């Protein structure tokens, strides 16, 4: 059979995909390690060792991206995990307008991030934006959502959650729907209420779904670029710069070697944070 197998499932099947994937993804990724150590004009390069990395870590305007990226990823991921779970549990219970509510929460995921960013940044205008006019009519002075350095990054993160919580919710819905109803029935018979059902059944048994949400949202957060670029372009100053927006800025300035170093750093950050997280989550899933 092995001989037939070799012939039947020939590696030639992988060739078209393999070539495309190699040339347009793997090769540039491999090359990035070399080019990140050069000063590069696209036509000429000079090898400069780790200088680009040193620059990246020593300049506040560049290193700020780490902290921000981490904060952004943790905040968006955390909120999506929690809100998604609550919404998922709510939308699998006996609720009126269930389908409508599911659709409404999910639809923003399909919209253009740039469009969402533009719309929300107008609504967040400090004096005549919608948010603050509504707050003003309630007698509250709203903050400068995107101008105040303490909250600008969080404001963008909120919009990210608004747009992305739908995915988390549908994943939870799938996970929760797969929990056998018998558990709930048993609990009901034992006199448990909705809260204990949530804590004792829904929460622990939706762990696989939660792991997926954590991984997806966390990696998405680390790689995030569109929304921040549409809303603040990293400003005011450098307060909302993420690694991805810094890469773009260096690229714009023509610092191709430096931009590539940023790319490698993002690459390493994702590997160092996301792979162990993935391993940890899948391991604890097995132990459950």
């Amino acid at each position, binding site marked *: 059979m092995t001989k037939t197998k070799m012939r*039947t499932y020939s590696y030639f099947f992988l060739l078209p995909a393999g070539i495309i994937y190699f040339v347009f993804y793997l090769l540039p990724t491999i090359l990035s390690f070399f080019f990140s150590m050069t000063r590069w004009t696209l036509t000429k390069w000079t090898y400069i060792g780790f200088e680009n990395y040193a620059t990246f870590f020593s300049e506040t305007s560049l290193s700020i991206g780490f902290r921000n990226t981490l904060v952004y990823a943790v905040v968006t991921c955390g909120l999506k995990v929690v809100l998604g779970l609550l919404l998922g549990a709510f939308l699998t219970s006996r609720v009126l307008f269930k389908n409508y509510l599911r659709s409404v929460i999910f*639809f923003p995921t399909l919209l253009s991030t740039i469009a969402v960013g533009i719309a929300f940044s107008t609504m967040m205008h400090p004096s005549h934006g*919608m948010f603050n006019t509504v707050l003003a009519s309630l007698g509250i002075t709203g903050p400068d959502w995107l101008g105040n350095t303490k909250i600008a990054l969080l404001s963008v993160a909120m919009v990210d959650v608004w747009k992305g919580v739908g995915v988390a919710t549908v994943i939870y819905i799938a996970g929760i729907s797969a929990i056998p109803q018998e558990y709930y029935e048993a609990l009901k018979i034992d006199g448990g209420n909705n809260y204990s059902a949530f804590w004792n059944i829904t929460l622990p048994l939706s762990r696989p779904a939660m792991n997926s949400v954590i991984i997806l949202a966390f990696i998405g957060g680390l790689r995030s670029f569109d929304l921040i670029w549409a809303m603040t372009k990293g400003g005011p100053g450098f307060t909302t710069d993420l690694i991805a927006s810094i890469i773009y800025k260096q690229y714009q300035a023509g610092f191709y070697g430096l931009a590539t170093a940023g790319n490698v750093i993002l690459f390493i950050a994702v590997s160092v944070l996301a792979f162990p997280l993935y391993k940890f989550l899948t391991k604890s899933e097995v132990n459950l």
Partner: protein
Amino acid sequence: MSKGLSSDHMIKGIRGSRSEHVEGRLTKRVKRITIGVVALVLSTLIFWIPFYFVIINSIKNQAESADMSMAWPTSFHFLDNYKAVLTASDYMLIRAFINSTLLTVLSISILVVVAAMAGFVLQRREGGRTSSFINFLVLAGLMIPPAIVPTIWVLDSIGLFKTLAGITLIEVALHFPFAAILYKAFVATLPREVDESALIDGCGGGRLFMSIIFPLLKPVTSTVIVLTSINVFNDFVNPLYFFPGADNATIQLTLYNFMSRFTTSWNLLFADIVLISIPPLILFIFFNKKIVAGMTAGAVKG
């Protein structure tokens, strides 16, 4: 869905048999309606108002839209604004629609074929050393962001930078891991007996795949098509880097360009937002279930 419904019935049945007070059931019902209505109002506030805001401002005149208010317009400029947006910069938006559509159709056609082939063989060879190495490479592609400037350099070296062919292949490469994993998971549900009986009939590997396996992959293929089309159509970063230039504009880039061009004409910017949100809306109306199912499948298996 139907499973959830039947268990709802079961719970009702159990409750019924416990013969609660009618009064208690009534308050429960009131509670349920209250919760439903509250959820309805909240969801409307949180999710519909932004849409209302964008649409209403897209039909105001320039001065009124500059107020960025929610107020009803004093005069309607629906046709003027939308015509202005469509004709701006030599019908850039229409050209962009064409570009984006072409890009989406081409990249999906290629992706479906190559990813299905790869997913098939990877699943059937599961466990081998080579295939687990390849699996690792594919999984890595799901997590690790592409290296931007080296990709430009590669594209430029082979003459594909700023061409539709180049950006198409980029989209194929970047969506390949996700599609391959979906295909692999689906192929796992096809029993090997299918392959074997075909082999006994004298089919080779190629014919087995094309005449038997590929048609069987239809459900997952449609998932891949729907999900990837949304991602490619809404893609901003890749065209920004790999497909620059006014002639090349894709939908997302026009919006971005108009952002600096229409700094004072919010009405036109909003009209553009409305226009480019129509295709995802259409997809959503027709393929809602498919999209949701695909996203969950991808997430759980990925």
